[in-house]
């Protein structure tokens, strides 16, 4: 638009810059002789990601100039092995350009924030090394032109999430959460991988995403293949984007450092599932209606389920985690309803305000050494900047006019209104719950009396009364308020048309409009939620405890996270896999399979002993005997076979 078109090499540079930073820091850590110091790690990472950000802006500019249509760079050969031919390339279109912009922007700000938050941590260099690796992998994921290329980076972001959640591996909870995050998402990837193998087999060896979408849109794939592929991809997306029933890893993932949550578990990686569904949107649309309906309903169910858990959680980060799950449910619902633009728009705005909110929670933690809201309170005077930015983020998330979240949520609810009134109702209730739990957080954290914080926490050296965080942390938060407030206005400015540029023309049907019923109800829901929270947590009429008692079993269930963790971990993994299947199979292996073998051996030896009356008891003797035996057999058979032929 403003600049000449970006050359392909520069797009690759967006990807390679953080890779170089990762590699250099990795070498610096392993080879002490390099004289590498921790502060170099953060500078290098910020420089590399800063470079990526500038280039990503250029890419976005180019993409806007192309109306969001694919720039059509030819891919490059990666592997040739008979029919297994894979080419890797960069896909530059509205979707990837927007995602590159989101990933690099949020990542850059989070890195700056991390220099303050992680200051003095023993693993400072390792932290930035992993952040570089994550940013590289995430960029590789969004720019991939091939399904396999996407899948490879999909797994790599999963790896970095594992390593960063378990960053403080000396804490057993963090180590367990990391493992859980990896295995649960990998369970989703099991289906994703089946989908990948299925589509390759049924298309005769195609991995190129554009080609797969074209084949699906031209109805060249059978319904069975489409159903299998879309459901498989959706299961993978459900794992990464924490959709029911694979949602339960995300709250535990909050054990990682807060900037990690701010980048990976709110703005970027967890949105990758939505991105994946959007990438394959033409294929998803071509699938039978039942499939898309299933996707929409799972999304909506996840949205309301997670919101209900968010209302009762006492850990500020966990509230935000449930909120993230809930908002991702919104996006998945939109994809299922055919609301491509709405899903991406919400992904876009959500990335900024949710990252902001997580940074706010980290700032609060930096001051109080706790994430437990029952030990906070009254922080608005001690931390005015954190307070102000947190309010802005919350208002945006709650969907208050004219902040960014309002516009994107409105698009979502509008799609639901047109396609499925029931889902619209669910969505509006979720909007009410969202406003309620966010302002519950605000009133508990920033209002009332300070309730003392916590003395010790790992990785920090803070004590004493709460105080505002250093500038390295507050500046990124202040910057993030800008997109949280303003980016919704793109809705009025051709955002939908640009984003749809990636789709084939037949399925572009976005037209910006508003509906008074949807508008009124969602605004009412937002203010209703804020008001209800104020009544309960500010005015304390009714008191929260009374409310909890009144809700009775519902409260218990929600506070117990609906016992999904217990069912999945305790029930399925521990009882079925370990106690039942595993133990029996292991016993079977020991007693039966091995027993038969040993029995045969013992039996054979007994017979031999009796026959020959020759028991020396020396294993070597047996060995040499049997070796000798084999040699004799060889010679005998040789001679015999020669004779046979001679005859």
């Amino acid at each position: 638009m403003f600049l000449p078109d970006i050359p392909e090499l520069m797009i690759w540079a967006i990807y390679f810059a953080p890779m170089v930073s990762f590699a250099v820091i990795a070498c610096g850590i392993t080879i002490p002789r390099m004289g590498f110091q921790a502060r170099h790690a953060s500078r290098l990472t910020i420089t590399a990601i800063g470079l990526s950000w500038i280039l990503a802006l250029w890419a976005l500019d180019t993409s806007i100039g192309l109306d969001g249509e694919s720039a059509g760079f030819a891919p490059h050969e990666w592997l040739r092995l008979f029919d297994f031919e894979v080419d890797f390339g960069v896909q530059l279109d509205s979707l990837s350009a927007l995602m590159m912009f989101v990933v690099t922007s949020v990542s850059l700000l989070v890195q700056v924030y991390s220099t303050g938050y992680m200051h003095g941590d023993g693993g400072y260099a390792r932290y930035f090394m992993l952040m570089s690796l994550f940013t590289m992998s995430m960029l590789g994921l969004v720019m991939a032109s091939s399904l396999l290329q996407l899948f490879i980076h999909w797994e790599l972001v999963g790896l970095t999430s594992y390593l960063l959640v378990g960053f403080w591996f000396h804490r057993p909870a963090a180590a367990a959460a990391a493992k859980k995050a990896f295995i649960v998402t990998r369970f989703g990837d099991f289906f994703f991988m089946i989908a990948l193998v299925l589509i390759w087999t049924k298309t005769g060896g195609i991995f190129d995403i554009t080609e797969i979408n074209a084949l699906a849109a031209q109805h060249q794939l059978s319904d069975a293949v489409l159903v299998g592929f879309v459901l498989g991809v959706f299961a993978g997306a459900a794992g990464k984007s924490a959709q029911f029933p694979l949602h339960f890893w995300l709250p535990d993932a909050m054990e990682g450092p807060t900037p990690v949550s701010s980048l990976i578990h709110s703005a970027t990686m967890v949105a990758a599932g939505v991105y994946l569904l959007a990438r394959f949107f033409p294929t998803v649309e071509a699938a039978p209606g039942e499939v898309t309906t299933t996707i929409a309903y799972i999304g909506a169910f996840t949205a309301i389920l997670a919101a209900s858990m968010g209302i009762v959680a006492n850990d500020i980060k966990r509230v935000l985690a449930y909120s993230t799950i809930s908002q991702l449910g919104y996006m998945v619902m939109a994809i299922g309803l055919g609301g491509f633009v709405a899903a991406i728009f919400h992904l876009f705005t959500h990335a900024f305000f949710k990252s902001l909110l997580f940074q706010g929670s980290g700032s609060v933690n930096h001051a109080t050494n706790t994430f437990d809201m029952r030990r906070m309170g009254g922080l608005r005077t001690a931390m005015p900047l954190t307070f102000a930015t947190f309010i802005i983020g919350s208002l945006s998330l709650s969907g208050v006019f004219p902040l960014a979240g309002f516009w994107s949520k409105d698009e979502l609810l509008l799609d639901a209104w047109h396609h499925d009134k029931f889902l619209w109702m669910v969505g509006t209730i979720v909007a009410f719950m969202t406003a309620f739990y966010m302002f519950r957080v605000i009133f508990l954290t920033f209002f009332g009396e300070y309730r003392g914080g916590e003395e010790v926490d790992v990785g920090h050296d803070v004590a004493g009364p709460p105080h505002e965080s250093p500038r390295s942390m507050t500046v990124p938060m202040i910057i993030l308020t800008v997109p949280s407030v303003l980016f919704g206005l793109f809705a009025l400015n051709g955002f939908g048309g640009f984003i749809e540029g990636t789709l084939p023309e037949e399925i572009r049907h976005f037209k910006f409009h508003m509906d008074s019923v949807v508008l009124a109800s969602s605004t009412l829901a937002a203010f209703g939620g804020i008001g209800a929270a104020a009544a309960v947590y500010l005015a304390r009429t009714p008191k929260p405890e009374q409310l909890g008692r009144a809700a009775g079993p519902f409260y218990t269930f929600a506070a117990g996270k609906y016992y999904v963790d217990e069912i999945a971990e305790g029930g399925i993994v521990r009882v079925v896999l370990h106690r039942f299947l595993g133990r029996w199979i292991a016993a079977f292996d020991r007693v039966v399979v091995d027993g038969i073998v040993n029995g045969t051996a013992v039996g054979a030896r007994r017979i031999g002993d009796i026959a020959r009356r020759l028991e020396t008891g020396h294993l070597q003797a047996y060995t040499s005997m049997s070796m000798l035996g084999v040699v004799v057999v060889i010679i005998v058979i040789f001679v015999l076979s020669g004779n046979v032929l001679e005859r």
Partner: protein
Amino acid sequence: MVTLFLLLPLAGALLALFLPRERELDARWIALLFSGLAFAVSIVIFVTFDPDQNGYQFVDQFTWINPSGAGFEVQYFVGVDGLSAPMVLLLGLLSVVAVLVSFNIDERVKEYFAYLLLLETAVAGVFLSLDLIQFFLFWELELLPMYMLISIWGSGRNRYSAMKFLIYTLAGSAFMLVGFLVIGVDAGTFEISALTEMPPQDALIPLSLVFWAIMIAFLVKLPVFPVHTWLPDAHTDAPTAVSVMLAGVLLKMGGYGILRIALPILPEQAHDFRFVLAAIAGFSVLYGAVITLQQRDLKRLIAYSSVSHMGYVLLGIAALGAVGLSGAALQMFTHGTITGLLFVMVGLIYERTHTRDITSMSGLMHRMPLIGTVMLIAGLASLGLPGLSGFVAELTIFLGAFDAHPAATIAGIFGVVLAAGYILWMVQRIFHGPADEKWADLKDANCWWEHVAMGSLVVVIVAIGIFPGIITDSIESGIAPIAQIFEANL
């Protein structure tokens, strides 16, 4: 060239035996020198090997036994093609690694290294032989050093395990020999390429029986359910270097034998039984993985994971298509490096903690960050993380096998999820958690030989994960003639 590769370790073994007793420790350097030279030769072979050329390269051939008027002869016939070239490279690399991790052996040093080098020669003979009888002799020759290494330098129930290994293999190879003789006598030649060109149509006993007679030896070696129980015992009681060789190259003799002998010579029978093979493969993957989840002994855990991972090799083979077969060949190479590295790491950990009980270790990452990191890389490669070599091989197998055996392939893909379970559980238990006072005195890897052994395998695992082309060109040229047999006739 190839004969040089075969004889170098043997020469080293003899030289080591003749060392005077007071200079016994020099056997280490002799072993390192000769295995290093052999590795250099294997690199030369691999690099100068021309994938675009048909047939065997670097051939050495002469008649060895020629019974007058018998109508056939036994030859010394060695050479490499695209299938054996990576195996030779793998053997060269892992032998050096095995010598390095044995540097602190202090008991009967001369004999130890002599046996280790003899083992290399024997396995090299298996990978290089192009004559059935010669193949069989090397196959049997490998037993002797293995038996000695486990029973003398092993630990625990070492004699029991060594015996079990021996009996299992011998029982299998007895069947194999019968199969070879039936085929060879009937065709009047034991040359593999000649037999491939004219597959036997009929023999003394039904060919399907011959097929299974040969397969049973290879399946024991691979190993797959239900003939796998020798493997965990042998691994648990073997010294580190022997575990490295066992998992790294000896298991590959099974898969190699199937690809080199069973499939090309008896393609119709392989085709008839492909569903049986796929069923065994899929079952082995899950069965091995579920049992792995139960293990508390570090070595047994990795041993059982091998059962699961070698099931993938059989799955790729059962597909009988170019992609699946390539995947099997690739998996053999990558599993060799990955599991080799895992056993190296287990050895390093055991040397320091003197325990292999996973539940009794914790927080080791604080004391040994380097060992922990390399173990994590090896574990991630083992669970099929993209960017590392295991992923490429497993994906190739899945792609190649899905069309022919969808159910077994899905079972195989689920094995990858279970792999994440046992690997990450193990890493969490051993390395994560608070620093334990019990392990306050542990040292990280600090000797040069430890660094070289770990570093070389990590480099190979990462390099193949990122640029699989460095090895797939060779594999493609090796698999093409086998795949053609199945494409053309069946």
